[in-house]
């Protein structure tokens, strides 16, 4: 236990609360992400996992509670704020522009401009540099694309997911958050994306994934954060707990304190 506590926390939340009218989406939830890990967040519908992720990615401002990045308190008013702090989010609908190329999508909204006046005042693009850099990101991630100048709409679902993951990995300095990264993918493509997520972690970036797919969660996560009724019910170790016990905690059929201590993490 003491060895685990010594591990550095990259992203931490304490007592996050969010109410929408009479509905309490988050009821004082805590959250911890360690450096270099893949943390899965699971929970039943309405457990508050989306709200938790929205708060961490800046898409929603919590009513109460603190968010700490590398131990320092931060407050995100928008996803742009979170991104400025090095937190990148892969949204479920991917946030790619289909008619544009892979390279353009990688740099969309943060294009590399020409040095000097041409860039500063004319906002002229440095296409060559963007192409070289996109090529090296894509080579590094091995998603097997023919050309980075293909339009995204010509790609398969898994490849599009790969582009979105690659974009986050390329720009994230702190954390990558992925919302249902394997939803709506076939078996082969799902595995490809899982491998991609491992690659991102192996580069040293901690990853948070939200998923409904238990086999995928168990295959990839280092730890699992179980969200229930707006709070964190438990953090479990997927190597020590069965899938059915995890689901039991998630649905409330079993309490976290009833689990053997080695299951918790």
């Amino acid at each position, binding site marked *: 236990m003491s060895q685990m506590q010594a591990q550095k926390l990259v992203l931490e939340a304490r007592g996050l609360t969010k109410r929408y009218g009479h509905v309490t989406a988050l009821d004082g939830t805590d959250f911890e992400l360690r450096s270099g890990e893949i943390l899965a967040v699971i929970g039943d519908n309405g457990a508050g996992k989306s709200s938790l992720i929205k708060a961490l990615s800046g898409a929603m401002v919590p009513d109460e509670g603190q968010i700490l990045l590398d131990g320092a308190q931060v407050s995100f008013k928008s*996803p742009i704020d979170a991104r400025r702090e090095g937190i990148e989010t892969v949204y479920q609908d991917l946030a790619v*522009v*289909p008619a544009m190329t892979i390279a353009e999508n990688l740099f*969309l*909204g943060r294009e590399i401009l020409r040095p000097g006046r041409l860039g500063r005042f004319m906002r002229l*693009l440095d296409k*060559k540099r963007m192409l070289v850099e996109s090529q090296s990101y894509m080579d590094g991630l091995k998603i097997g694309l023919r050309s980075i*100048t293909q339009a995204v709409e010509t790609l398969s679902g898994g490849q599009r997911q790969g582009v979105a993951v690659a974009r986050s990995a390329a720009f994230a300095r702190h954390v990558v958050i992925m919302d249902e990264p394997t939803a709506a993918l076939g078996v082969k493509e799902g595995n490809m994306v899982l491998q991609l997520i491992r690659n991102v972690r192996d580069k040293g970036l901690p990853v948070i994934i939200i998923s409904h797919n238990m086999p995928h969660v168990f295959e990839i996560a280092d730890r699992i954060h179980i969200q229930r009724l707006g709070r964190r019910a438990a953090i479990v170790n997927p190597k020590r707990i069965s899938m059915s016990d995890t689901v039991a905690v998630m649905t409330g059929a079993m309490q976290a304190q009833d689990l053997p201590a080695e299951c918790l993490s």
Partner: protein
Amino acid sequence: MPGEIVKSLTRAHWPTGFLPLSSLGPLAALLLACLFFSTQSDRFLSLQNFSLILQQVMVVGTIAIGQTLIILTAGIDLSCGAIMALANVAMAKFAVQYGWDPYLAIVVGIALSTGFGMINGLLVTKARLPSFIVTLATLNIAFAFTQIFSGAETITNLPPAMTALGNPLMVFGAPVLWGSLVMLGLYLLTWWVLRDTAPGRHVYAVGNNIESARLTGIATNRVLLGVYTAAGLLYGIAALLSVARTGVGDPQAGQTDNLASITAVVLGGTSLFGGRGVVLGSLVGALIVGVFVNGLTLMGVQSVYQMLITGILVLLAVATDQMVHKRR
């Protein structure tokens, strides 16, 4: 190796190469039309006639640049012709009846239409109204302002400075209006901005998928506001060209230019769903209409048939666009 890849790709595949394949269709149509009319009338194929066509399309062509920007963001502008007419009578009246310096009158007229464009943009972004409704309203407002302000009367005796762009420049013995050159210059400038600058690419991103654009950090409202304002500026320049070409301030100007400019944009291959298209296509589109009107007139065909043929052309262009996109 990366160097070679980049060399081969920057030219051909970044969707910013010279012209994408989709714009070859309109160009082919234009060439075919020219070929056809040159067999029908021996007066068609001459530099004089071509410079006349250029002169005939210069106002609609300039308006179509602004219309293209708006259609690229998946919007539409019905007010363009009316805004152009307002700027048209405003600059003429300021110069002739108020005795302002003609350059000041021009600047104020263009500023007026830029302001109208900005109002369109604010209504689309802040009030979140559909562009069709917003510009339907501002079409009526601008038209009413034009009639009230001018008393529905044509303003004549313009100072020479105001009509200077209507003067010809001799190119290989054919008179080309300075205004036509202004239109061509604006096309090249807009094409470059859309292709090579970050704000230009953001116009495409916003038009193709506004939600994704927002999530990637693009200030989508600022892009939209910029587009509608720039369109207003272009309508103001079109107003100056219109004044220069006709030599009068005309409250009846531009009444069909909204639909004519949309026709040019669609014929030029820009998708009405936004995010796809090249502004130079709209120039080709405007020229296709110009060539048909000119050629049919030379053949002595009545103008109602010219409209009939324009309608058929638009249907053909949209049907081709649909067929191309279904394959995706």
